[in-house]
């Protein structure tokens, strides 16, 4: 066969022109677009997967990972139907949504317990107080607190090695807010990584290491890491479903949300999807997170059906919200 240039270029050009000139018909298939937090992603992914299987391909669900902030940007530009968020919506984001005329409902879907972990060979730090954590992580600790006995004289004189998520992560925001009292206020001389697996490896391989990340990463590496029980004045409490549900794992448990656009919520497939989310809490625990109690899901569904708009948090970061409080707040909507 002899390939001449005309034979190659002409069809290519024709195809290219056709492509640009092709009229854009609206997609006939029902579709739900979700974007946002990487923490919430595994939950949404599980729901999207099962929902599509149940619908036998009649509904398309896409899930993106832009981070909580990036997800809200897209959401408030009207590009997505739902925003995944590992924290409540902030004032600036509420303003952006208001300007674009986008109204939304706030749906809590799960709890996450930020877990402080140490190496299994660490025999001294089985539990720590919030004050000790602050001493370790506050901005003033930079370059000064470098060995364990400086945190608590009972601890050995061993080098302190810290691992934590990078500054772009919602986990970092929440931990600094809860422990240091101000979001993003942290010492800077620790090993930071956006990839939580790096943090897991760091703590796994250093006897004197301490790190923190979401519960799911601890749950997947339980055999190689020890979770530190947190003492916030009422005795040490370990991160677990029970302790998060009864509100004693304080202040490191946080609710995770999905924000649903009001106009999207009127579409039957979106309604069905939200209902599916609020009635299949077992998928949450399957991907390593902590589901809300049944009553909380029922209440959230009731609010959704009644079309209650807006956030109950007023756009300000809050720490240590328990499930009871969340329910009470939801009740006050």
């Amino acid at each position, binding site marked *: 066969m002899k390939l001449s240039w005309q034979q190659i270029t002409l069809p290519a050009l024709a195809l290219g022109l056709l492509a640009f000139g092709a009229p*854009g018909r609206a997609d006939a298939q029902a579709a739900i677009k979700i*974007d946002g937090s990487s923490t919430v992603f595994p939950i949404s992914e599980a729901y999207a*997967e099962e929902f*599509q299987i149940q619908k036998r391909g009649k509904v398309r669900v896409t899930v*993106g990972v832009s981070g909580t902030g990036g997800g809200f940007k897209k959401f408030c530009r009207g590009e997505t139907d739902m925003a995944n968020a590992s924290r409540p919506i902030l004032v600036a984001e509420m303003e952006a949504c208001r300007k674009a005329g986008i109204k939304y409902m706030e749906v809590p879907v799960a709890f996450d317990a930020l877990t402080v972990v140490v190496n299994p060979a660490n025999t001294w730090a089985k539990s720590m107080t919030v004050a000790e954590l602050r001493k370790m992580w506050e901005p003033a600790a930079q370059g000064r607190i470098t060995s364990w006995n400086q945190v608590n004289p009972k601890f050995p004189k061993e080098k302190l090695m810290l691992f934590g998520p990078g500054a772009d992560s919602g986990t970092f925001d929440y931990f600094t807010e809860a422990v240091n009292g101000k979001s993003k206020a942290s010492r800077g001389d620790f090993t930071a990584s956006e990839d*939580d*697996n790096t943090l897991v490896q760091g703590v796994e391989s250093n006897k004197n290491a301490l790190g923190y990340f979401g519960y799911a990463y601890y749950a997947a*590496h339980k055999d190689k890491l020890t979770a530190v029980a947190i003492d916030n004045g009422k005795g040490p409490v370990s991160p677990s479903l029970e302790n998060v549900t009864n509100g004693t794992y304080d202040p490191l448990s946080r609710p995770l949300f999905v924000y649903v656009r009001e106009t999207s919520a009127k579409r039957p497939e979106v309604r069905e999807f939200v209902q599916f989310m609020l009635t299949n809490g077992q998928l949450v625990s399957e991907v390593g997170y902590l589901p809300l109690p049944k009553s909380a899901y029922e209440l959230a569904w009731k609010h959704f059906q009644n079309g209650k708009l807006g956030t109950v948090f007023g756009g300000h970061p809050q720490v240590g919200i328990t499930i009871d409080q969340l329910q009470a707040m939801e009740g006050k909507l």
Partner: protein
Amino acid sequence: MSAVLTIEELRSGLAWRKNLDKAFVVVGLLILMSCLGLLALLFLDLVRDGASRFGWDFLTQFPSRKAERAGILSAWVGTSMIMLVTALVALPVGVAAAIYLEEYAPKNWFTGVIEINVTNLAGVPSIVYGLLALGLFVYKFGFGQSVLSAGLTLALLILPIIIVGTREALRAVPKAIREAAYGLGATRWEVTKDHVLPYSTGGILTGLILGLSRAIGETAPIITIGALSFIAFLPNSPISGTFPFVNFEWLKSEFTAMPIQIFNWVSRPDQAFQQNAAAAAAILLGMTLAMNAIAIWIRYRFRKKINW
């Protein structure tokens, strides 16, 4: 030492220089082997880690929260479609630009500026292309977060590679061929079309494939324009059963791609996903190697046909 070399001195000098020559061959071979060895090691490591996941299911299943159920169907289909758009756009534009610069453009400051810019574009970080495409294709032209946007972005990215590669290929055609054709009264376009292009096809296609091999692994620009992490459906088929038998809905479809899928799996807590990531990475590497193999085959075929 005397001014005139004796025969013995000449011989020993020659032997020394020949030994140097051999030593260079050995050093060069060692460096080459260690580079290839590293690549082979990486590839084998990926294959070993992902060994349990290779199979038909892995290629025909959608991503899933369960590692053993997860596959790369939407990822490799997405990557293939993006590559198709990239090739269809970058090839005509790149080749036309190269022909103009090489055969038509007068040598003045203007073409000088263009040439410097083309070379510079090849060194621009890919994220910059992503940001440009986000503003231009996704929002300004309204293509959205689609296969079309991704394909056009990567086409821009590899355009300099294709232009440079094509120009090299055109330059390799002997001047005598052009002059002979001009001598017989051919116009410039006829010379280009009938003589220069056929002889340089192998080089041009090689440039294209090299460009595509770079584009296939790009992550940053397609994340910027909005590649999604979880898609469990395929874009509409480009071929339909009814008239006009082709449709372009797939260009407007949301997409995911191999590098995105790998990145997503690597950053998950469940260790079983690391195997999926290794298997997917090995397949991506395999796709790149296959493309390069095709480039070599094409070059061989076209070179065989040339008889000057």
